[in-house]
């Protein structure tokens, strides 16, 4: 009899097929209406472990993985960016070919859009129109945010579909300005009243990010191609200023040759970007700074943003790209004031104004 019990125990032990050790962390607490910062974390390509963090700068608290905790499902593969319109946050999950609409207070999914190719950024144009830029597509998708369906596209003539790339968008008045990044050299001007490209201008190689003073100027950071054999070309990174009245490039500042520059931001008369740390330059400057505003030897700085309320600088560090990243907060003088841990590869910031 003991043998039978023993054998049964052994058989039972062998029949344990897997142990679910998933973390059962509780749902994140709902927010009050204070300002906060969403951090979109890429996760690792094909691993489906992108995530969303929420940081409260008032009390320096952070809630990680809020999407998964609120919805009981993963955010997806290579989460790219987030933008907010009202109480709805639009999260582009590049590798999963999906855009999630979430309630920015509860993080719960309100809807999702699937008929998009490698979505990069979403921008609310009106109550019934959302623009979505894409990688591997030469169109900007037009989404009806009420029905979560793609209702049309803005075609970009002379851009190859297979290498098509549209990236960040900034809306000023009735126009949206779009930088075309991967294998591209252009900035587009779109009339949101008829969803047509009304102008386009060539800048440096691979315009990676754009920033504006909200008035007459648009600055474009071009990464220069990144690698010498890039078929679109290779040059030193640069920052160009476009006069929005004429839509012409009025000045270009070359950055250090072979440097890696990205994530251009504008705040209070200054431009900020990542290049061997955080660079700061007056918007009126005619030459690049000779030293970093916040120096760093890290290879892995991956995101930058400025708190529009007080000028605090937030820098995302992916560390080794296979562990939770960190975000370091500096005051406007460049002094470190806080840091917090996020998900894997913090890649995008989105401010929740509380309005």
């Amino acid at each position: 009899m003991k043998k039978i019990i023993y054998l049964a125990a052994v058989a039972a032990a062998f029949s344990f097929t897997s142990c679910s050790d998933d973390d059962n962390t509780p749902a994140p607490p709902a927010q009050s209406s204070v300002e906060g910062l969403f951090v979109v974390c890429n996760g690792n390509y094909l691993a489906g472990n992108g995530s969303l963090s929420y940081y409260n700068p008032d009390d320096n608290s952070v809630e990680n993985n809020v999407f998964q905790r609120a919805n009981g499902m993963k955010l997806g593969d290579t989460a790219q960016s987030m933008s907010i319109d009202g109480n709805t946050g639009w999260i582009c999950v590049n590798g999963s070919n999906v855009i999630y609409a979430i309630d920015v207070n509860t993080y719960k999914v309100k809807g999702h859009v699937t008929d998009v190719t490698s979505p990069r950024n979403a921008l609310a144009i009106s109550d019934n129109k959302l623009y979505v830029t894409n990688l591997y597509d030469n169109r900007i998708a037009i989404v009806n945010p009420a029905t979560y369906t793609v209702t049309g596209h803005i075609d970009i003539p002379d851009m190859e579909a297979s290498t098509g790339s549209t990236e960040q968008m900034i809306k000023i008045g009735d126009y949206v300005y779009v930088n075309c990044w991967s294998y591209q050299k252009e900035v587009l001007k779109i009339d949101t009243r008829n969803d047509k490209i009304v102008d386009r201008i060539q800048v440096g190689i691979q315009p990676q990010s754009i920033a504006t003073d909200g008035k007459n100027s648009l600055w474009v950071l071009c990464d220069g191609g990144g690698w010498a054999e890039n078929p679109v070309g290779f040059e030193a990174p640069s920052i160009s200023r476009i006069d929005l009245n004429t839509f012409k490039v009025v000045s270009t500042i070359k950055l250090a040759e072979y440097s890696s520059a990205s994530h251009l931001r504008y705040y209070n008369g200054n431009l900020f970007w990542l290049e061997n740390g955080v660079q700061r330059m007056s918007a009126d400057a005619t030459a690049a700074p000779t030293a970093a505003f916040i120096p760093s030897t890290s290879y892995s700085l991956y995101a930058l943003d400025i708190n529009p309320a007080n000028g605090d600088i937030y820098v995302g560090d992916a560390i080794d790209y296979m562990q939770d990243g960190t975000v370091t907060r500096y005051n406007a003088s460049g002094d470190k004031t806080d840091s917090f841990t996020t998900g894997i590869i913090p890649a995008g910031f989105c401010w929740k104004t509380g309005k």
Partner: protein
Amino acid sequence: MGHPLSRDINQSSGRHCFNRAKFHFNSELFSSSEPSRHLLVTALLFLFLFPRAATARDNTLSHSLGDVTVTASRPLSRIGVQYTSIDSAALRDNISLSMADVLGFNSSVFVKSAGRATLSTVSFRGTAPSHTAVTWNGLPVNSPAMGLTDFSMLPSYLIDRASLLHGASSLTRTSAGMGGMVDLSTSPAEIGDGFNVQYIQGAGSYNTFDEFLKLSYGDDRWRLSTRAVLSTSDNDFTFINKDRKEFVYDDNHTIIDSYYPKDRNRNGGYCDFHLLQQIYFSAPRRNDIGLQVWYTGSVRHVPLNTVDYVDSRDFIKKQRDNIIRAIASWQHRTGAMTLSARAGYVHQWNAYDYAVERSEGIMNTSITSRTKTDTFYSDGEWGWTPGNNLFLSATLSVKHDRVATVDHAALAGVKSYDKGRCDLGASVSARWQATSRLGLSAVVRQDIAGRDADAPAPALFADYVINRDANLTVKGSVARNHHYASLNDLYFLPGGNPDLKAEHGWSYDIGVSADKAVGSRTNVSASVNWYDSYINDWILWLPTNKGFFQARNVRNVHAYGIEAAAGISTRPGDDWKIGINAGVSWTASINDSEPVSPDDKSAGKQLPYVPKLSASLTGTVAWRLWNLQYKWCYYSRRYTMTSNENTISGSLPRYFMSNLSLERRIPLHAVELSAKIAVNNLFNADYQTIMAHPMPGTNFEIFLSISI
């Protein structure tokens, strides 16, 4: 038999020896001589109509763990070597198995894959896939582009011999195996006299069909064999997808419900075809000549991960491969001298296409990648046995790789790179049986990859027999090894880094093994081994903020652990045969690098996707013409993050896997028939070996075989 040490020499160099007796294999495995009047109708009838048709001779012929006969004398080539031989019964378990499946259940390596017919790589002693050197009949088959080997592309039915050389022991054959080496080969010993035919048909879950055909001929001089394998499957198993939800909207587009969908494995279908031709000729004056040519044609759809919504539209995500491997060999034995030479060629064409429906009927192609690799290989070996206890050898090898890769979708077919590299390798070795108990061996290798020449790779081995009765032997080694960057690491655009240094490091092994016959019916064996190795300048591809990944020498790794194995085979009665083989490994593969920043939590942590603990067990019970086999393996939690987080994004849960098969052979007058049913994932484990890639639950396949 030639010179007493000729067998050792053959094994050490991986050559084929055409005198079948030297291999000590039971070549009756596939013979058919037992008459029977019965005929096969269906597989199930097979299994149940002939339960008592066995005879004592049948039992002798049954498949079992005892088919490999181990000679009592210790070959010089094995002095101090940590060696695992994959049992021939494991290779011949069923035709649906690839070497990835065989290694997963029969060795200490961890196999990472996203299911059948998907890229399957191994982690040997906690190292990267490219750190496992793989040869087929002595021909290096690691991809010169990526450095790794896809074991799912190697059907076990086309392999006659498979063995693992652990860690430093791989230096007795080749360099670059920082984790070890997998040595695969075909053998003339598996080709019987006269004409022989074997055909196997398999049919299983998910519309899976496997077919195998072998035609062979053998006489005193010639051994010819043609083998073909065709495998097709929809591979569309179902699973509950807990990584995403289906949302139910009302008419106002408000979510009113959600649930975890029962998804299918999307886009998992495949069709693989293999054709292997072997020709062996025993020429006069002790000259042996061989030629093996292996063609592989494969079309595989690449399964989507669990969080991909691309299938809301039509899409293409597909990989195609055409591979030709050819190796010609010559060996000459004269007195105390052995000379041998090989010349080989590998051509691989790989295509990867990714396209998504843009609008109805119009596809938007974003990736049209084509990679062509050509490898020319040649080596020669000289061996000399000045006395019965000493063997000296020297080898010289030349390998030229060329890789051309292009993405036609990227700006009108701009080439990513088209580069070649010539690798030269030379080694000298001495193996000395100093006393009847003490063996010593030394090898020094020098490799030059293109214009890069790392320091030589020396290795010292020793073993000592403590107890002859139990063959209780303690063995140890110390070695320096290196691994040069692959051509993708160096030149892929964007991200390749021509300034990469070779990965390198020292490793140390010590272990003890024993085997003993207990009475006339039982054999037992056991071994335990400890290893300690260091790999410096480990190459990783890391993202950059330029929008692409880049190869860098960024990591130092300290890998150490324990490998233990035990086996027993016994014949409790004339009709019975029982065998159990088990192994367990504890692997620490630790990031020994300095933290890259104050926030870096990876220092001192286990590398991702390396389980600390793994175990496997195979039990076989043969009774007359029946054969029951149970295979079990276990892998502990694998971290997916370098910081070793126990979260849903940071690790994959441990899992147990069980497979069961039952076979019935039916010897008839002129043919032998058999039927087999295999149950995979017996307990329907819900598991993943790669994050966000589901694996199939319980599934079945039935095999019918006829041998003439």
